[in-house]
C-alpha cells in the first residue's frame, strides 16, 4: 500500500508540475474520467515483457481511433523508451520497477480542440544526464544510438524530468480520431 500511495503522490506532484508548465499551451484534461487515465501498467525491467507492453499499446491506440501509422508510431516510441530505461537506467537488471501511465489529454489547436495521448514512463534508476538525451547524428552509419531519434520522430512532445528520485519521461501524440478501426 505504501508503494501505491507513493506512486499516487508522485503522479499528483507530476501532474501539478505539468499543468503549471504547460499552461501556455492550454492543455486541458479530457472529461472522459476524472484525470483522463486510460491505462496503467507496472512491470519489471525484463526485456521479455516489452512485447506485452507493445500489445497493450497497439490495442489502446486502436481503441482511441489513431490511424495505423500513428498506432505504430506510439507503440514504437514507448517500446524504445522502455528499452532505454532497461538498458541505461537499470543497466540490464531484470527486476527493477517501471510504470507506464497512459492518459487522454486535450489542447486548443488553431482550428479547435485537439485530442492527445500522453504516456508517462517512470523508473527509479539513477538520474539521466540530459546531455545523453540528445541522441547522435544520423549521418554516420553505425549500430546503436537510434532509440532517442526514433522516439522524437514518432511523438509530438518528448520531455524528461527528475523528480524525487524518479526519472519521468513524458511522451505525447496528438491526433484526429478516425472512425473506422485501423489495423495496426
Amino acid at each position, binding site marked *: 500500500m505504501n508503494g501505491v500511495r507513493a506512486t499516487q503522490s508522485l503522479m499528483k506532484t507530476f501532474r501539478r508540475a505539468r499543468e503549471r508548465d504547460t499552461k501556455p499551451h492550454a492543455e486541458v484534461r479530457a472529461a472522459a474520467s476524472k484525470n483522463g487515465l486510460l491505462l496503467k501498467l507496472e512491470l519489471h525491467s525484463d*526485456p*521479455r515483457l*516489452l*512485447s506485452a507492453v*507493445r500489445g497493450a499499446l497497439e490495442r489502446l491506440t486502436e481503441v482511441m481511433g489513431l490511424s*495505423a*501509422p500513428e498506432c*505504430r508510431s506510439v*507503440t*514504437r516510441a514507448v*517500446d*524504445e523508451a522502455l*528499452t532505454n530505461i*532497461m*538498458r541505461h537506467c537499470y543497466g540490464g537488471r531484470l527486476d527493477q520497477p517501471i510504470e507506464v501511465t497512459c492518459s487522454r489529454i486535450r489542447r486548443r489547436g488553431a482550428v479547435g480542440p485537439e485530442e492527445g495521448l500522453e504516456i508517462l514512463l517512470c523508473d527509479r534508476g539513477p538520474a539521466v544526464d540530459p546531455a545523453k538525451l540528445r541522441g547522435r547524428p*544520423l549521418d554516420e*552509419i*553505425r*549500430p*546503436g544510438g*537510434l*532509440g532517442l*531519434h*526514433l522516439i522524437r*520522430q*514518432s511523438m509530438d512532445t518528448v520531455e524528461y524530468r527528475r523528480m524525487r528520485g524518479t526519472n519521468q519521461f513524458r511522451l505525447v501524440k496528438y491526433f484526429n480520431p478516425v472512425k473506422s478501426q485501423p489495423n495496426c
Partner: protein
Amino acid sequence: MQILARYINTATIFDVSGDIDLANSPEVRKALLHEVRENRPPRVVMNLSKVRYIDSSGVASLVEGLKASRDLGLRFILFGLSPSAREVLQLSRLLRIFEVYDNEDQALAS
C-alpha cells in the same frame, strides 16, 4: 522469435519470425556475425516477411551484419519488410544503405 538458416546456391537465407527487440536481438546479431565471419557466403539474405516489428537494437544488429559483410566483400540483402520495419529503417535513414527487395525470388535473382 525464431531464426533459421537455409542454403540456396551461393546464398545463406535467414528466415526470421516474430518480433526483434531487446530481448532477442543479441541472438540475431550472433547468428548473423557467425555466418558472415565463419562461413563467408557470397550473399547473406534476411527473410523478414514474418517479422512484424523491429526495434532500434534489431536495426543495430542488421547494421552490424551489413558492415561485417561489406568488410569481407559479401552482399547483405533484406526482403519482405513489414510496414513497421520499413518505417524504422526510413526514420533511421538506413533504408537506402541496405539492398532491399520485396520477395525471395527478387532477392535471389539480384
